[in-house]
């Protein structure tokens, strides 16, 4: 996909418009999409794709994907949410994901950052250090 600076800029602005108090909400995104439909941009499809791309990235920044081999309690999830919201200075919602390959422990992904406290990750690091 060709990167057009104007479209990139527009898409980023649209992402900003989709936020309510710094959080992307469904209602706001719906408003933005409705607005886009009315305007009928010349490169409508490209704008939409770019918007989707940046929106995904923004949502990823607001989501903590918590991978564990077994299910976590609600309290633990709440604690994780609170910790990361404080760390990043923005509301972060936790989403759970089951991953048995971790053996035990937990791995949290917020945007590009990965916090690894799993047994699998520790073993891998140990293997690298010993080598």
């Amino acid at each position: 996909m060709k990167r057009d600076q104007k479209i990139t800029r527009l898409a980023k602005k649209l992402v900003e418009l989709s936020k309510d108090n710094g959080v992307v909400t469904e209602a706001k995104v719906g408003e933005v999409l409705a607005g886009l439909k009315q305007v009928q941009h010349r490169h409508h499809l490209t704008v939409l794709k770019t918007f989707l791309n940046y929106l995904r990235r923004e949502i990823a920044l607001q989501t903590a994907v918590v991978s564990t081999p077994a299910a976590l309690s609600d309290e633990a999830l709440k604690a994780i949410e609170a910790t990361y919201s404080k760390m990043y200075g923005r509301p972060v919602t936790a989403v759970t994901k089951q991953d048995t390959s971790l053996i035990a422990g937990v791995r949290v992904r917020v945007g590009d950052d990965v916090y690894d406290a799993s047994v699998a990750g520790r073993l891998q690091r140990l293997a690298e250090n010993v080598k």
Partner: protein
Amino acid sequence: MSSIVEQIENEIASFQAGAVKSNTGKIVSIADGVAKLEGLSGAMYNEMIDFGQGVYGIALNLEEDEVGCVILGDYSKLKEGDEASTTGKLLSVPVGMGLLGRVVDAIGNPIDGKGPINSTETYPVDQIAPGIIPRKSVDQPMQTGIMSIDSMIPIGRGQRELIIGDRSTGKTTIAIDTIINQAKINNQHRNEDGTFPEGFRPVYSIYVAVGQKNSNIARTIAVLEKAGAMEYTIIVSASAGDNPANQYIAPFAGASMGEFFMNNGMDALIVYDDLSKQAVAYRQISLILKRPSGREAYPGDVFYLHSRLLERSARVNEDNGNGSLTALPIIETQAGDVAAYIPTNVISITDGQVFLETDLFNQGIRPAVSVGLSVSRVGSAAQIKAIKKVAGKVKLQLAQFRELAAFAQFGSDLDAKTKAQLERGARVVELFKQKAFNPIPVEVQSSLIYAVQNGYFDAIDVAKIVAATSSLRDFLETRGAKVMDTIRAEKAISDATEAALKTSLAEWVAGFSA
């Protein structure tokens, strides 16, 4: 076996549990050794990126939404969508005495099959060159063992002297000769227990092969091994088959290994063979990274690529390690064109150049050093007195000879003075012919030049000068060994030594029959 168990136990003991943070990204595209990654929002410029499976890369382009990364090593297993993470480290290579005698790749992994490298220290590949304060002027000689260079284009420790010429004009040979000569000098002074006497500064060599055929590298190693120079030499190899990122990084890795010696009060010599190929590899990377291209399609920072590398060669003062790193970069020209982009860049960065000419090479004048175009800007301060005394006039003499020789082709009637100049010049040219991988010690060099300058060769036919030179060299190294030892120790030709030398030379002339 128990040591391995102990090592693992130590690792486990010092192992930090708890969460480890890393910044990750996904490969969007990968081609020709360059990967574009989405994410990696925390990546730093020149940071090592871990692609898993032991493959690493360097972040070179930090863009708004993407990171451009060159991959070191085998990238055939990587694919679109694979995850990579930051390491928080700059690319580093092992350094130290344990590398001597080894052949390593661009990131310091051994490739000679002699097991792991015994080294505990690592240096980042890209380091900032010493500034003004830590530097000291060049005043110690780096003898190449090649008579024409040591007498006319002397090189000092800490200097950067470019070796430039067309393909197959003997560029690598000059560099290898220099490495062999350093090993010879080291061996000459080495005590039986392997230590060096107080006051003697051994020179360690690093040979960086960039973009060369593996067969050529193997041949170079064989030559060095045969000459006994490998034990003082590190070979960094990024052959033509290695990916461009390795070819780009290899000279920097070699420079880091050399800096270890410089920072620890030792002298080192580094040969970059050759920087034209490194520039080509860098051009390839830059074009794939879509950086704007300039003249000859090289990127805008190709000058900085070489200047930041060569600036790392320096002589530093006592407060900063009291060592030196001498660089002999090699540049290959196309049809003798020194005005091309890369040659002019490197000529302007270095402290002089040894220019080799195809014509001279084909005429049998080997090493094919062009006296008119070669120059050393700082080396004369480092010449020892013995050579300075005899070689002061040689350059002028040869220049005059070339001019007269061209002129003399048109007329046969020449006055006695011109004739004498032509005769002497022809003998000097013959004297400077030297076989490959056969460096001559500086005391013998000065005596040979002394002999020509003082007419000891005048009676010998020009065609027989080469034979006479080798005969005189043998004579000086055997029967004249005492005089040679004196010159080597005093580093000058005193009146008494001169008298002894004259006696020796007279003895040789009497005995020599061509």
